[in-house]
């Protein structure tokens, strides 16, 4: 009796009542015949794997880790965590060179940035894409994120005095994307926070959150990053600072994947780590105000990234956008864009990736908005490439609409 009451299983897998609800919401199961789906890959497979690791199925690599199965499960089974943990535990193949390259977002950024114009030009060339496709299995139909000439870190460092003068302070985990590919988003955040009387600081040398490493069979390296990040986040938190982010995936990774998948204890910092949209919303709720341009007008269609749905914080982005006078807001139906970080770059996933995103792309084309809003950089690449519509982070839209 006692046992039944007090025993809980890893990632809640014994709570599964085999209702098959998750199978109705897995985007990969609909399009990829090789994927066994959340129920079989997750709780069903776990029972077998616990008996004998022989039952580990390499097709688990097709899981996007989008967490849609977890959001749908009525029994609180951490289906995606089960799948990712099984990959970490049982997949003994060393990652391919391609996967290592895709996974090392901050390392690649450091290398590419000084040569940004050349790198951008080269990765844009048809011939380079063909070579990448042939030699590395990176699909040639992909467009690559551009590298920016100057990093966001160096931009903000030169403004540290000016930022320190604000009465209230936050630290910003900018992530690889803002640092190397798109510093403008970081600048937009600084503009909005400054308008609220909040100054922005860098962390003491953040590292890539590590999600791409988790996805590419490099969990040990990811755990090192996690430990480092928890440490530097801890320094900021102990100075009484909140840490804000502009990427839903980095946030989910640092809040939930660190303890669940990498077994890195983040309890000291978890509650202080917030999406900037939530931080801003809460400031406004407490009485702060933002002044918006009177002549601003934009038709915005908002896509909630899967990881933000899992975090349950899409509502903050939605409310901020709706609050801007002149924004004509539409909520896009809950769908996965199919990109999921580095997943869609891989040649073997390209078709599935585009098929998964198709309903979303269609809805966007029908709505014909001025801009698609979304809090995730990889959704942005996917949607821009597949629909031709520009995609902006809600923070950038706020910044643009400010007086």
């Amino acid at each position, binding site marked *: 009796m006692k046992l039944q009451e007090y025993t809980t299983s890893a990632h809640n897998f014994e709570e599964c009542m085999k209702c098959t609800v998750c199978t*109705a919401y897995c985007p990969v199961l609909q399009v990829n015949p090789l994927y066994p789906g959340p129920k079989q890959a997750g709780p069903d497979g776990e029972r077998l794997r616990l008996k004998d690791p022989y039952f580990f199925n390499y097709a688990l690599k097709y899981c996007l880790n989008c967490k849609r199965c977890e959001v749908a499960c009525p029994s609180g089974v951490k289906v995606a965590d089960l799948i990712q943990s099984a990959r970490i535990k049982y997949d003994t193949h060393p990652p391919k060179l391609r996967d290592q390259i895709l996974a090392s977002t901050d390392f690649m950024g450091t290398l590419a940035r000084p040569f940004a114009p050349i790198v951008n030009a080269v990765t844009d060339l048809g011939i380079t894409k063909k070579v990448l496709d042939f030699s590395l299995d990176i699909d040639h139909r992909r467009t690559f994120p551009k590298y920016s000439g100057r990093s966001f870190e160096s931009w903000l460092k030169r403004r540290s005095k000016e930022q320190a003068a604000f009465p209230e302070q936050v630290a910003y985990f900018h992530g690889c994307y803002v640092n190397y590919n798109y510093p403008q988003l970081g600048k937009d955040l600084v503009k909005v926070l400054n308008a609220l009387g909040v100054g922005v600081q860098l962390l003491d040398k953040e590292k890539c959150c590590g999600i791409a490493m988790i996805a590419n069979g490099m969990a040990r390296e990811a755990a090192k990053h996690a430990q480092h990040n928890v440490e530097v986040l801890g320094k900021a938190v102990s100075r009484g600072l909140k840490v804000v982010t502009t990427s839903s995936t980095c946030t989910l990774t640092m809040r939930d994947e660190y303890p669940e998948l990498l077994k890195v204890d983040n309890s000291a910092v978890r509650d202080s780590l917030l999406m900037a949209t939530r931080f801003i919303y809460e400031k406004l709720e407490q009485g702060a105000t933002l002044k918006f341009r009177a002549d601003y007008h934009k038709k915005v269609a908002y896509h909630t990234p899967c990881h933000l749905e899992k975090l*349950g914080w899409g509502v903050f982005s939605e409310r901020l956008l709706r609050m801007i006078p002149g924004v004509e807001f539409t909520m896009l139906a809950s769908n996965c864009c199919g990109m999921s970080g580095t997943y869609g770059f891989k040649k073997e996933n390209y078709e599935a990736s585009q098929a998964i995103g198709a309903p979303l792309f269609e809805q966007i084309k029908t709505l014909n908005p001025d801009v698609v809003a979304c809090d995730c950089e990889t959704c942005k690449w996917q949607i821009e490439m597949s629909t031709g519509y520009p995609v902006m982070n809600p923070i950038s839209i706020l910044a643009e609409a400010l007086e």
Partner: protein
Amino acid sequence: MKFDTVIMGGGLAGMVAGIALQQAGKNTAIVSMGQNALHFFSGTFESLQAPSERLAELFSAAGIRVHYRKGVRLMPLGTFKEAALSLDDIDLFPTPKFGRRVLIVNFLGYHDFFSSFLAEGLEKQGMECRIRFLSLPELDNAKAHGEMRSVQIARSMDRIWEKVAQEIRLLLKDEDTVILPQVFGLLDDTVPGRLRQAIPARVVFAGTMPPSVPGVRTQMQLRRRYELLGGTFLMGDQAIRAHEHDGVVHSIATHNLDAHYLEARNFILATGGLYSKGLVSNPFKITEPILDLDIDQPQDRNEWYNPTFAGEQPYMGYGVKTDEQLHAIKDGVAMQNVYAIGSILGNTRPELGSGAGLAINSAFAVVDQILRCTQNDNEEPATPVILSEAKNL
């Protein structure tokens, strides 16, 4: 975040309450931990006869098509059950013998549809049955990994139903009825009707193992309607705690929003029964996990069960206690701004019906109660801070 009413649980009960309140101009949020019992829905609304005018209106605005007539319906294993108000997908017959010769069609590799049980059951009623399997290359995807479920097939059927109709026309000999698994009309609810038109025999859809395709569709339609009316649907989030003061709840905490509480003047508990974890059990007790409400239950655990497995199980009827107006009762006292609706009531309110009927009747009753209270109040109902602020920025 501030709302007029926060609803815990996004099943049929929570969603009907949310839609009705939004329609009445209230600002609401629904927090739902996971998907709900509609995913197992047979298509028949238990204990409801004809829809009330307001239910008919609510359904039609959401695009949910229903019909009614007192009669029987075909069950997945070839038996018949009394039924009235049902989704259009479901056929209602005056008597179980609805045809003379029946063609039962299934898809090769699909194991969640029980064609031979169906045939056995229909033959008992004096109907002649023939079972045929269609092999469709479009379903090879699903077949390959062995996870071939109703919803996956239904996604293909939205596209290829015409081809299926064509194949069935070729199979059809002298049968007056065709029975198909209920895997049509997931996103496009006109498909079942068009299929019926395209086949020169009566087409009857029979239930499959879950997920229920018409149920999933109904769930999506209700959610879309609710969001279109401006409701805030927090999917995948769990209400974990209520903050109360003198028997009045002022906010709840959720798993995802942690320290960001959802404040409201009214709270509706629509978290379902044991199946949905609205009630939870341990070896000693059944409890309601958010507010720890009162539940009538025998001390002796042995009385929870009926030893006959298939018999009526007493524990299925346990539910939270409420007063006349469905205020939830805690430690013997009715909480003034907390209401309980839907299957979390168990069998405690038989006058409100059972199953979907209970969910809908109790939802409307509480909505009326809330609207009546705010009418009597001089106070302005709470509006979301941010939205009103934006206007005078």
